[in-house]
């Protein structure tokens, strides 16, 4: 299975071309699930690298190959298998990130910040919804008290 995974990655890397970036852009968003969630900042860093025209082609091809493997439903462990389906993809992403190391660093730092931004935005939204619901409750409470006082 490991051999199959490596062979597939080699094939994807060898055949990588600029037009694959468009394909990846369309399907990458749907991959935010299962084990991939844990390595999402790294996936985003790889995606940023392939979008960067100044990145070296050799590294870019490896990143394109990895992302093509990720979006491909039929790989070493088919993605349709619940839970286990994306673990090989996540492992491959970790391997590629380790291989690209320093080259990926500048994209990774930014991605970590963006990941934090997404979480902060999510929490801010939750806080706002809670506060608005409390305000509505308070307004209803005041109205009910006023009505009861008038009636009483």
């Amino acid at each position, binding site marked *: 299975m490991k051999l199959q995974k490596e062979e597939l990655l080699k094939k994807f890397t060898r055949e990588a071309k600029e037009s694959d970036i468009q394909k990846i852009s369309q399907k990458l968003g749907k991959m935010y699930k299962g084990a991939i969630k844990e390595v999402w900042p790294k996936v985003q860093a790889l995606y940023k690298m392939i979008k960067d025209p100044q990145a070296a082609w050799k590294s870019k091809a490896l990143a394109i190959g990895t992302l093509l493997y990720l979006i491909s439903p039929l790989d070493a462990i088919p993605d349709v298998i619940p839970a286990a389906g994306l673990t090989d993809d996540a492992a491959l992403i970790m391997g590629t990130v380790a291989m690209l190391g320093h080259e990926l660093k500048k994209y990774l730092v930014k991605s970590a*910040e963006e990941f934090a*931004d997404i979480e902060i935005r999510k929490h801010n939204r939750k806080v706002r919804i*809670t*506060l*608005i619901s*409390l305000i509505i409750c*308070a307004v209803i*409470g005041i109205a009910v008290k006023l009505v009861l*006082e008038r009636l009483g």
Partner: protein
Amino acid sequence: MNLFSLYRLALFGLTLFEVAVFLRKVFRYKKYFDKLPRSVRQFLQKRSSRFILGRTKVHRRDLIINGCLIGLLLILNFLLINFS
């Protein structure tokens, strides 16, 4: 005791719980942090404060909106308790 009071109490309990979890984490990791060399500690402190300041600047608008909503809620609660 009405539903609104219960809701507020539940939220207050949740807040206390989150604060307790946060404090537990702080005390859990503090001993490891204290063992680090001084230069590493200073580096980490500078980096995290820069990170927090940066995030605060980015999300300033959201923080202001939430602050205004808290202010409005406090006023409404004050009205609810004292005037009606």
